[in-house]
């Protein structure tokens, strides 16, 4: 299973973290520190796997961002590498050629999308189309609620004029 997902920028800034195994806050910070040290310093053109504390970290760099997923020793590495790419493709489709800034200012969207992709550290949906449809449905739910609220406040504003 995937124990955690980590997005780190080239400068070592954390852009997203998701923990499927229980880590305390202290452990989380330690893991991030250690792994940034390991992953960011790897030269290009090496393999996408790093062995780390009895686990494996599968990572891939997209522009300035490193996507890392920590898996168990016996898990299938390439499968996870393509989950990363699958995630990136979905982000790309949602934001329209995604860049790091999108993920900074809309980090919450990245969380929503990840939740449609993975649960319990396992792949939930392998169809990009389905994920896109579900995210769009969520967005419209939020949008509708907002409109309702604003129309309601309009009515109140009108009434109290």
């Amino acid at each position, binding site marked *: 299973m995937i124990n955690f997902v980590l997005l780190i920028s080239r400068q070592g800034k954390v852009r997203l973290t998701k923990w499927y195994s*229980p880590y305390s806050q202290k452990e989380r910070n330690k893991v991030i520190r250690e792994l940034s040290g390991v992953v960011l310093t790897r030269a290009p053109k090496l393999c996408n796997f790093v062995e780390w504390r009895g686990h494996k970290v599968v990572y891939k760099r997209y522009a300035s961002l490193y996507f890392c997923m920590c898996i168990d*020793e016996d898990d299938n590495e390439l*499968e996870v590498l393509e989950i990363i790419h699958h995630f990136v493709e979905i982000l790309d489709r949602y934001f329209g050629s995604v860049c790091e800034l999108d993920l900074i200012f809309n980090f*919450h*969207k990245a969380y929503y999308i990840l939740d449609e992709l993975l649960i319990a550290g396992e792949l939930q949906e392998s169809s990009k189309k389905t994920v896109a449809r579900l995210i769009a449905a969520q967005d419209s739910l*939020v949008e509708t*609620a907002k409109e309702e609220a604003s129309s309601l406040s309009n009515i109140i504003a009108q009434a109290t004029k």
Partner: protein
Amino acid sequence: MAMSGMRGLSVFISDIRNCQNKEQERLRVDKELGNIRTRFKNEKALTPYEKKKYVWKMLYIYMLGYDVDFGHMEAVSLISAPKYPEKQVGYIVTSSLLNENHDFLRLAINTVRNDIIGRNETFQCLALTMVGNIGGREFAESLAPDVQKLLISSSCRPLVRKKAALCLLRLYRKNPDVVNVDGWADRMAQLLDERDLGVLTSSMSLLVALVSNNHEAYWSCLPKCIKILERLARSQDIPQEYTYYGIPSPWLQVKTMRALQYFPTIEDPNARRSLFEVLQRILMGTDVVKNVNKNNASHAVLFEALALVMHLDAEKEMMSQCVALLGKFIAVREPNIRYLGLENMTRMLMVTDVQDIIKRHQAQIITSLKDPDISIRRRALDLLYGMCDVSNAKDIVEELLQYLSTAEFAMREELSLKAAILAEKFAPDLSWYVDVILQLIDKAGDFVSDDIWFRVVQFVTNNEDLQPYAAAKAREYLDKPAIHETMVKVSAYILGEFGHLLARRPGCSPKELFSIIHEKLPTVSTSTISILLSTYAKILMHSQPPDPELQNQIWAIFKKYESSIEVEIQQRAVEYFELSRKGAALMDILAEMPKFPERQSALIKKAEDTEVDTAEQSAIKLRAQQQSQTSNALVVTEQSHANGTPSVGQLSLVKMPSMSSHVDGNSADPRLSPENGTLTVVDSQPSSADLLGDLLGPLAIEGPPSINVHPQPSSNPGSDGTVVEATAIVPVGEQANSVQPIGNIAERFHALCVKDSGVLYEDPYIQIGIKAEWRGHQGHLVLFLGNKNTSPLVSVQALILPPMHLKMELSLVPDTIPPRAQVQCPLEVINLHPSRDVAVLDFSYKFGNDMVDVKLRLPAVLNKFLQPISVSAEEFFPQWRSLPGPPLKLQEVVRGVRPLPLLEMANLFNSYHLLVCPGLDPNPNNLVASTTFFSESTRAMLCLIRIETDPADRTQLRMTIASGDPTLTFELKEFVKEQLVSIPTTTRIPIQQTPTSPVAQPTSAPAALTDPGAMLAALL
């Protein structure tokens, strides 16, 4: 840019991005946290929008790595918001901020459950996602049936069902009992008929987890898995959106093949044939293509197919095909494939027939040892280690030694350990072994653990033929200008023991040996100085006839170190000085070390241990274990043919027997390192009684008094001269006080009072762990007695001293715990009536000469029989009123309370299963809690608690406790008081006072109740 629509959030993120340095960022974050904190203080005034915004900001700050220690409640409370936007934020932030062990999650269980069983599909999705990501044991127990219902419901849409499948997987991982095998196996098989590939993918993950624990129950799934695999491999009926770069869902293919690896065999010949057809198609039909993602995806499937072929023990032809493929992979340019080629070739080693084919690739693998990528080098090292045998050991070990000088620090320790093990296991001759180890120390001394040089010393000591050679080699290394300290240790030790065998060679007279060794003394640490002193004493003894000049030189050194502040050095100096003046007596005492008992190599053991530690329930590992049972025997016989020498290293492969047969009470402690060798010799060959007393005297005084062992009545009387004299002669270990517990016993106990598993006791020899499950008034505990050592623990006794109110039954505890073994002893507990008394475990064992006896409180305490229950206002108030006053409802003003913020007090209550029900009491300074108590006499009984605190004075409060049983009310009141009054350790009865016999146990509850004074105090 800002699609979020939350301006405040975007502004804050921009601000952070504009910070020039970390300091500025910290200031900005602190300001924001302060702002959020004040806003949250007046929660009522916040609009849902604002609340959402602040919670997101908290998550952002948390992600930046700052501690966010407040506001969790606000995040959790958003979960119960009625509208989707707030609820969504509540769920997602909670699951990112908290982990499964967080107390607040418990508060949300009911809301989450309502969302799951409710009719709103979007709410169901949110709830399932959160539980799937961070749900813990409690979630498992309360939600699993509902989640199962959703998964198999025909009225639920796929988007809910796929989430339910993975949610159930999580709950199953937390507590496997929540999935009832009998009922579920058929359902699981039905789920595999699912048409929606999203649901099928999730269900397949669930199946993998289920079969990994119990494949027998799920046989009916096997043919369906093969069907699915066929359908995917043939690309039949796969919607376009479920293909990935033209490959039908590679993830589902991988998972299906993973599930198949947990079934031991496939007996049905038709099923087997069709599976092999598919596998053959994958093995042969996967080509390298230009597109990276397509390549990765197809190879993900290919490597899984390889693993499945290995598992199924295919015909030799197919296996050779696999090895050929892997041989191709380890030579390609693409680093991922190269890495996986090496990794899978290592796994392939377990297949018996193909080892020779793998050996053909040795040269290529050695090249990978020089790869620029450390990940690949590690795989290459592992593979070389695994494929090494008598035929290629020399080549491989020499490659490893060569590589050692250039390897990076991260790998040197592993590398040297592996080289040492291979050299020992497969040495064609023993002098080669000595050469390898000395080279190893020379090249990578810092990374050679003590075990490695201890081992070479054992070999040399036990093999007379080897001794002159080893001594000569050691002498050679001493000529080098700068040598590693470990080399000083090993050479000094070997030359001290066997230097005299070289006496006729040039440069090897006692005097010359002494001076070349003594040259190193100024540069070495204290532990090495001790060894050097022993060496000098031995050299002195071997110089016959005595050389007065050498004698004076060495005596001067002993004299000098007599005042060393290091006790070990001082003692050796004093003893050697005195001994060496005794003349003939010296000969006996400093004679050559006796042979070491033959036993498992510490190195190989170490390697095995690390393997066991990382072992999981994986198909590959399980297989490895099955195989190793047969292969051990093979190696042993093969070896004894190969060389007629006593095969010390080879014995190591046989695990237990060789250990236990050598250990008996009198033999030298096998853990003694050669450093302590001289003392052992003196120990076992006493020349006179007073000498023995002298030697043991200081050690006996040194032994620190233990804190956990109580004075034995028998040793108390006559505590004057005679007793002291007696203890001076008794070997140090005989004293019961010599073993110190690790960690604080009281703290461990208190920790276990609020959780159900953990360590109860630990000392250098044993670890006692405990795991408990509580159901109503019954408890099922398991004691885990783990022997941490390489010798057995004997005379093990465990006696339970239960208080009156508990019926406890401990299953048989074995008299002996084998080395490194863990014994599980179930303990059943039944709670008869309410009481705060504590059960005690009287545990004793013997290790060598150490007799250890400890009395440990068992965490079968009152709160374990409580189950939190949430009551609504409609339920609470009628109950509360129906219990009018004493003795069913007791009130007390408690003073001297630990001042706690209300929130922490609520946490404290929740941790003891007293569920705080917010909102029942209109006064915000008050807490109302409810729980159900279970015992045989009371059955399930509702208990209600109200705490009124005084915001002006946090050290006092008034509490009211009500239940339907007077004893229960009283005991619960006292229990709560104990938790509140001060640090629990001081209020509990100290262990020493706990009566050692159950009969003498006072029944405190009724006594207190009949005491009018106590009654009065309780009523006030």
